[in-house]
């Protein structure tokens, strides 16, 4: 027997998705694989998803795998690789589950008496207002008089048939939905339905208790539910719903009940309210009229909540008695971001949420707008800003997120988690879909980069002493001709459907490139002979991630069309630092002056031979580094889609000339710290020091009260990205108002605050269409407001001087009159910015 001790790495514990992946890998070996949690003493068959989940293993638990069988050597190496490589990464990033009870403050508009507010767990952001629609429970309870029952063997047969039918239904459903969250969740459910321990336990119950198949399933479900419910992990407790969901489906199939799948009709816009909504029920809902979701059970990490987020449906869960406090048809507002529900909202509350919904959509619009603008510096230097992707879904998401191309399409993910590598046809279908989704924009497909840190079980490459310097990527293509031929043929054929390019990883020598070029030429001949279409002029390129490649650029430029700098590996090999080794990790930095000079040499070297060069490592997504890329005159950078808006906004404010000067001085610096400080300083100057812009001035507003006016001022700052937490800033403004109202007569008020929730010192201006009362004693209603918001950290800054100067000028009637009669936001900004003391 072989033992592999390890510390459990997944922060959400052992739940269905990683467990089902664990089982898949364990299943590929003949040996018995037992998972032991040393903290709890729980033991589980490694080939049973449910048994693994039922160990309720938490992050950090000491664990051990016991492997015993005729292939235990191979199995232990395989499991070790899996635990070290893929497993820690196979849990999807989840929003941190909110602990019920830890409630955030209510915004001021919701603090009035007499409001019917229910508070739960913020599970999917957004605001919705619609009448409630109560959904009944789909609980798999036996009918009165119990389920029909035959002999034990008949019941076992009934059970097996129903499980088989449910499995088939799930598989056909999986085939019909696009890859993504929905498919992952179906996959996790499938692995529960087909779990040998689960069905084994149910069959055993039938034989031992002589119970009906339905009862046996309920007993089995309860057993697992009890184990999970006692877990310390909120996330694992929420998995109970998944098991109930699967059992409901099997029982419904078995007895031909309506059960889940018989989706309730949603005839008009509604907020659906339910005790619990199983993921499959959510999927079955007609979402056209589904505006929001309120659940008595579940939480932020339940699969239903994950689905709600994926489909942009606001959702609040964990309001225990919601089904008894609400009637169908009752008007309600769901505030998914704050995790609350307002029943029968009065006008003021409805107005608050209308304003907030407008503001949120404004914010989303402006973020999108930023990401959609082209990557070009303020003085017109072009740099293509593309995205890295690893699946067809990510390609589509990248383009809707503003990518100007796919600078790196990783293909490793297609090969992971399966015993047999995908064939040519399967790859062709995927690459062609990615190419079509790109609508003419470039998609750079990188051939398989496996080995080393990314092992692939199906290749059976023995473990290496030093995988980063070992047998990986282009180095193993010669030994696996079927693999690389299939992939290259698939890419070539996909090139008939869009702007596809080929890129080879880990090139260290010219002969490697020549071999691949020859192979491509041969495959093109084959395709010609077979009459299959492809782009004869397809561009080929290589990753620059091994320093040796950077010194033969003249030779490489004769062979390829483009280069992409893999900054992570290149820096690691160049600096001789293993990033994962804590003792030396601090030496790893792309801001090493030596590395900056090296990059310059590469970019200049490629350009000298008339070819183009991009960069696709993590450095590309570092907003501090963005000005350096303009300084290099690099042609393209490729980064995570979520960072495109931020990087573009930096690039668009930079001048290429300044960036070149910045780069020269950075390359001359003596330490990475000095470089980083210079980059931060550059970024700060770029951000500018404007206190007020046209975006923070609004000259028409229908606010009906002081409360609404202050909130609108704060909303203006939020939409301009100047405050982090609008509710907190609103509170800070009101705290100041309570000591003494800030009306200054003549229809003007100057509310102000100093708060850590303010990220940029700001002034917002609001002119009301109709004046509002400012305080009880105030004879003079207010219609012109100037909000001054100062960051708590601002001490003796230039901004405070400007604000003090502005405050002094406001005392003067001529200045006030000029402000109040200004014709547009621009004129107001000019007046406020003028620093001279107007007396």
């Amino acid at each position, binding site marked *: 027997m072989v033992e592999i001790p390890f510390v459990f790495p997944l922060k959400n514990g052992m739940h269905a998705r990683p467990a089902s992946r664990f089982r898949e890998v364990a299943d590929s070996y003949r040996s018995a694989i037992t998972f032991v949690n040393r903290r709890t003493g729980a033991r589980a068959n490694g080939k049973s998803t449910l048994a693994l989940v039922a160990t309720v293993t938490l992050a950090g638990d000491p664990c051990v795998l016991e492997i015993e069988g005729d292939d235990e050597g191979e199995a232990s190496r395989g499991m070790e690789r899996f635990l070290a490589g893929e497993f820690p990464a196979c849990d999807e990033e989840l929003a941190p589950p909110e602990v019920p009870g830890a409630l955030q403050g209510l915004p001021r508009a919701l603090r009035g008496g007499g409001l019917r507010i229910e508070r739960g767990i913020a599970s999917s952001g957004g605001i919705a207002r619609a009448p409630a629609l109560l959904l009944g429970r789909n609980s798999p309870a036996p009918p009165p008089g119990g389920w029909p029952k035959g002999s034990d063997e008949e019941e076992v047969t009934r059970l097996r048939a129903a499980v088989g039918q449910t499995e088939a239904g799930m598989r056909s459903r999986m085939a019909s939905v696009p890859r993504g969250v929905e498919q992952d969740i179906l996959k996790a459910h499938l692995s529960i339905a087909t779990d040998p321990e689960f069905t084994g336990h149910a069959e055993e119950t039938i034989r031992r208790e002589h119970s009906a198949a339905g009862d046996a399933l309920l007993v089995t479900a309860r057993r697992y539910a009890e184990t999970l419910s006692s877990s310390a992990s909120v996330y694992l407790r929420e998995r109970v719903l998944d098991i109930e969901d699967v059992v409901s489906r099997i029982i419904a199939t078995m007895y031909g009940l309506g059960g889940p799948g018989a989706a309730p009709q949603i005839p008009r816009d509604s907020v659906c309210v339910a005790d619990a909504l199983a993921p499959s029920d959510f999927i079955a809902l007609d979402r056209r009229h589904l505006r929001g979701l309120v659940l008595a059970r579940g939480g932020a990490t339940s699969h239903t909540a994950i689905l709600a987020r994926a489909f942009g449906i606001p959702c609040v869960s964990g309001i225990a008695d919601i089904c008894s406090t609400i009637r169908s048809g009752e008007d309600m507002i769901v505030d998914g971001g704050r995790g609350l529900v307002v029943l029968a909202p009065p006008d003021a509350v409805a107005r608050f949420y209308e304003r907030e919904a407008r503001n949120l959509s404004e914010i989303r619009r402006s973020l999108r707008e930023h990401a959609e603008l082209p990557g070009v510096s303020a003085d017109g230097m072009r740099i293509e800003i593309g995205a890295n992707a690893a699946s067809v879904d990510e390609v589509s998401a990248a383009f809707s997120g503003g990518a100007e191309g796919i600078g790196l399409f990783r293909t490793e993910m297609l090969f992971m988690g399966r015993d047999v590598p995908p064939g040519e046809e399967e790859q062709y279908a995927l690459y062609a879909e990615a190419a079509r989704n790109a609508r003419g924009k470039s998609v750079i497909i990188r051939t398989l980069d496996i080995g080393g840190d990314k092992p692939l079980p199906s290749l059976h490459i023995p473990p290496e002493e030093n995988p980063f310097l070992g047998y990986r990527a282009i180095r193993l293509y010669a030994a696996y001709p079927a693999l690389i031929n299939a992939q290259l043929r698939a890419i070539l054929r996909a090139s008939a459907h869009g702007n596809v390019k080929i890129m080879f990883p880990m090139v260290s020598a010219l002969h490697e490139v020549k071999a691949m070029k020859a192979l491509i030429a041969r495959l093109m001949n084959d395709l010609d002979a077979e009459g299959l279409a492809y782009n004869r002029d397809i561009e080929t390129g290589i990753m620059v991630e091994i320093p040796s490649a950077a010194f033969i650029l003249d030779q490489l430029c004769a062979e390829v069309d483009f280069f992409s700098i893999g900054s992570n590996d290149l820096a690691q090999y160049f600096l001789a630092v293993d990033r994962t080794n804590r003792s030396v990790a601090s030496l790893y930095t792309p801001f090493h002056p030596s590395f900056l000079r090296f990059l310059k040499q590469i970019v200049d070297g490629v350009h000298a031979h008339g070819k183009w060069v991009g960069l696709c490592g993590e450095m590309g997504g570092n907003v501090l580094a963005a000005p350096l890329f303009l300084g290099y005159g690099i042609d393209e950078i490729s980064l995570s889609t979520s960072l495109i808006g931020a990087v573009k906004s930096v690039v668009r404010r930079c001048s290429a000339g300044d960036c070149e000067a910045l780069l020269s001085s950075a390359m001359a610096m003596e330490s990475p710290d000095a470089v980083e400080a210079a980059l931060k300083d550059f970024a700060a100057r770029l951000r500018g020091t404007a206190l007020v812009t046209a975006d923070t001035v609004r000259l028409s507003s229908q606010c009906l009260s002081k409360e609404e006016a202050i909130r609108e001022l704060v909303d203006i700052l939020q939409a301009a990205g100047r405050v982090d937490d609008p509710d907190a800033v609103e509170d800070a403004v009101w705290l100041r108002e309570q000591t003494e*109202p*800030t009306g200054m007569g003549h229809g003007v008020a100057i509310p102000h605050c*100093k708060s850590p929730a303010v990220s940029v010192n700001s002034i917002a201006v609001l002119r009301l269409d109709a004046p509002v009362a400012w305080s009880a004693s105030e004879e003079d209603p207010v219609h012109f407001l100037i909000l*001054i918001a100062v960051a708590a950290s601002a001490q003796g800054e230039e901004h405070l001087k400007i604000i*003090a*100067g502005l*405050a002094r000028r406001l*005392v*003067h009637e001529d200045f006030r009159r000029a402000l109040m009669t200004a014709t547009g936001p621009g004129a107001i900004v000019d007046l406020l910015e003028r620093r001279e003391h107007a007396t």
Partner: protein
Amino acid sequence: MVFHETAEGDGMNIVAVTACPTGIAHTYMAAEQLEKTAKKHGHAIKVETQGSMGIENELTQEEIGAADLAIFAVGIPVRNAERFANIRVLEVSVQDAIKNPESIFAKLG
């Protein structure tokens, strides 16, 4: 504002302190309003602000000693208040200084 110059005619020599809770706006508005109104009435005035940038235009013991009167336009306690032990102090709210400066100066008689 140069305090040491003698006030014109029957004008007075006034010292003042302004301070409000957050110290970012009203402190300075009140200071400006007091200076503006004093000038209009022919008084000489020096206003110390105790705000977000700390104490500015600080009053010395000599300046206070030479003054006829001190005005505190404050919403929080004045810092270093012991300097004003031997002078008549008129305390008003910051709000009053901003909105009704004329009525403050009318009281000075």
